């Protein structure tokens, strides 16, 4: 139920005063509400739940996490 999937913002516009956008989910494009991420820009990645963007995805944080876990994995190999 709390499933949320990442997607890329490809278009931003307003309908009935609501900030909306088109999101590309790996080829499938759907309309979602962007009202909770007013700072969103086209090209940003966001996490979508029941047709609403819950937050933007922080690429720097994602890279840091992957690098850290990669180091942990390699550390085991060296030992």
């Amino acid at each position, binding site marked *: *139920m709390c499933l949320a999937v990442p997607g890329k913002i490809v278009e931003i516009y307003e309908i*009935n005063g609501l900030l909306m956008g088109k999101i590309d989910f790996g080829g499938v494009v759907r309309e979602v*509400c962007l009202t909770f*991420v007013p700072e969103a820009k086209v090209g940003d990645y966001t996490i979508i739940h*029941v047709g609403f963007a819950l937050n933007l995805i922080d690429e720097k944080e994602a*890279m840091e996490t992957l690098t850290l876990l990669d180091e942990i*994995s390699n550390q085991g190999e060296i030992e």
Partner: protein
Amino acid sequence: MKYLAEFRNSKLVSGVIDEITRTVSQPWVIMEICGGQTHSIMKYGLDQLLPDNIELVHGPGCPVCVTSLEMIDRALAIASQPEVIFTSYGDMLRVPGSQGDLFSVRASGKDVRVVYSVLDAVKIAQDNPSKLVVFFAIGFETTAPANAMSVLQAQKLGLDNFCLLVSHVRVPPAMNLILGSPSNRVQGFLAAGHVCTVMGYWEYVPIAQKYKVPIVVTGFEPVDILQGILLTIRELEHKSNDVKNAYSRVVNYRGNKPAQNIIEQVFIECDQKWRGIGNIPGSGWRLKPAFVKYNAEDRFHVEEIKPTESPLCISGQILQGLVKPINCPAFANQCSPEHPLGATMVSSEGACAAYYRYGRSK
């Protein structure tokens, strides 16, 4: 980066499991709160890859599972009204009430529709002015901002034929209940990443301190879940009980303020009854009095609900991590996804359904 394949990378999965194995020195019991995480753990077999002395127990974070039987029965009664178009997320249609489910109401000719987003229900109300559109607004903190926004949108559009049947639940009071129980076994928590995306994780600091349990905000992909488990194990092994964030690409400490503001504008805290568990004080949200006309419970006075639960179903114990699905005598006997006795077997995120689907047995 597309934020999916990178976090399903098998090399990282085995690397983090190796690190967990190096770190753990004694048995620990960890609960993942969220049903979505339970599903991922079973789907990717993470429980079977972990060292034997780490036991995962499954929490109550499945809104479909914990929506009270009274509320399901109320939904069935409202959906049966001739002037109503009843709208809901798909998961709710098969949840058994005392007599039948929403699918059986639809089969009897009533207008019950599955929507992807609550804004679709608002659109149905715009398109059907002679009908009353009711949306079954269930969910945790993750879903509450969307449901709250629908009320403000209906108000802005001047829609009088749209209302919510609200049954919202909140995670922190449920964690307090589990940790405060004399039979509690949970020593560390994986907090639900998308709940925390909305709410942040400041609410968990006093819980971690009071009960001396580490709490780690955790995502949903296999690498995310294993990172959450690794951080929890490190805390446990160091006898520390901090709140950590293993889902920092999406979650920050304070959460999403615009989303929280919308929740505060529309909802007010209330006691909530959880299916199988009972009443948990302050664990729900209901519409504020200013939005009474959008409250389906006020628009339909459904009387005389006398819910009857299957005597065989022990979902309350399952949802608190006290019993595993495979230890329920009815599991895969009288109870299966085709013939569920309780909600934990209905929802794909219910622990019983996840065990059944991914072939966990005694």
